[in-house]
């Protein structure tokens, strides 16, 4: 096996960060210049949004249900079983709804984008597109970015609601809680900062999913093996980035809302 010098690895890493940043910047700045590919954006929205609905609904539902189940044990010890609704609601809206939806969509769509764009890259279709006078970042990246951001926002709302419904199902049928009590505590415990945090996270995650997926796709080289590698890397990077960004963003928002 050939040994690679640490200097080369460092150079490659810096280059990768630079290329990713440039791609991310261009995908946003393209929004303000023509041509805009509306039909491509709608097609991607259908693929990302509608296509991801079943897994997002299932994930949300079972997460909410298991949250109610797990927390009931602890809450019962303190005689606070009635707070189940509040706990499920806060956990889902602030954290689990956006993060799990993000991770699911990353697994499904970052990989899809990386493999699609990667295949186009290794078969010279990306070069052909440039040769035909089309900017691939405009035609391929920006529509995916817009579709991911918008659709992840709505998918997260759906996931939150379905999660609450899952929690209610367990609370009502297994824990014997009053239905009205569950929904009232769930609703009343939410304040502006919770909803703000829960609904701005998917915007960041949607951007990460599309930009990371497209970056690895466009950087693919080395035939079908390269496409496979790009796909795996995209899912891993997007998932890890979602969790890292989630931590720092939560920390930032907590600081902001505590100050105010």
């Amino acid at each position: 096996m050939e040994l690679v010098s640490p200097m080369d690895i460092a150079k490659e890493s810096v280059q990768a960060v630079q290329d990713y940043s440039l791609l991310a910047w261009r995908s946003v700045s393209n929004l303000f210049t023509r041509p805009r590919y509306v039909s491509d954006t709608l097609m991607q929205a259908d693929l990302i949004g509608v296509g991801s609905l079943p897994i997002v609904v299932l994930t949300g539902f079972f997460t909410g249900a298991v949250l109610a189940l797990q927390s009931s044990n602890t809450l019962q010890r303190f005689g606070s079983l009635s707070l189940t609704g509040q706990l499920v609601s806060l956990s889902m809206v602030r954290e689990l709804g956006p993060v799990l939806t993000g991770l699911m969509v990353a697994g499904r769509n970052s990989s899809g984008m990386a493999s699609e764009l990667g295949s186009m890259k290794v078969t010279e279709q990306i070069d052909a597109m440039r040769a035909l006078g089309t900017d691939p970042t405009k035609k391929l990246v920006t529509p995916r970015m817009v579709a991911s951001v918008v659709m992840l926002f709505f998918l997260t709302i759906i996931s939150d609601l379905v999660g609450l419904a899952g929690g209610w199902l367990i609370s009502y049928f297994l824990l014997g809680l009053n239905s009205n009590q569950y929904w009232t505590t769930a609703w009343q415990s939410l304040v502006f900062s919770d909803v703000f945090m829960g609904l701005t996270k998917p915007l960041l995650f949607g951007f990460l999913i599309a930009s990371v997926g497209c970056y690895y796709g466009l950087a693919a080289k080395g035939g079908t093996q390269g496409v496979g590698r790009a796909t795996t890397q995209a899912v891993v990077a997007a998932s890890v980035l979602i969790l890292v960004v989630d931590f720092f963003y939560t920390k930032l928002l907590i600081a902001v809302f505590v100050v105010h």
Partner: protein
Amino acid sequence: MPGAASQLEPAPPPSGSSQQTIIFKDVSIAFEENQVLSQVSFELTSGETKMLLGVLGSGKSTILKLALGLIKPDSGDIWVLGEHVNQMKEEDLFHLRRRIGMVFQESALFDSMTVRENVAYRLVEEHVPAEEIETRVREALRFVELEHTLDMFPAELSGGMRRRVAIARAIITKPEVLLYDSPTAGLDPVTSTTIIELLVKQRDVYHTSALMATHRLADTLTMATHYFDEKANQMLPIPDGSSIEARSTFLVLRDSKVIFDGDVRQLAASTDEYLREYIS
């Protein structure tokens, strides 16, 4: 820093460039440790087809990609249709590329689109009315004799048919320059001749300037010794003593350098040992 001087003071294209479609001046490029082109200079005049010959990996495809601005040279200057390609930004290059047609080695058709959508791609991007697109797509496909494949996907076509669809996609906007990257590579002799006939037709009927990268000498000799007879609608050999001129020249690359630039007679008369061996 390579090219620093020319960035400070953009060099004007050499005089008389209106006749020259493409100019390469001392162009060098290396990929990592591998020097692919060093100090390559040539000119392509209007209406001429220049055939880039060389063994695999001699930098033929690189020249085409440089001309399109898909990659940038390490040093040297490139002008295409009067534009200083190596100093242009990517956004500006998209406008220039719309005046150039490129046929990639592996066709590079969009595999999720039908033949019709592939050929119509540029027209759709330019918001041409749908009826006009349909007419022009059919016309371009008729030119390559593949009108019946309109609704098929690239995966359903043979290698030769894909190559012909790629030619149709490249010529549909009647570009001023055409770049062919090994258009006959991997094809059987009959299909190769069909493709070469299309290239000769494009050269003699539409007088489009072209660069053709190839490693098949036989194809280039056919191009240099044949013309397209519009009345007979076929490619015919140029009779001895005829005044018909096949506007085709050769550019031979070896070890990242140009070792020959001239027409078929000069090639035949060359005393260079490598060339003699190459053409024998």
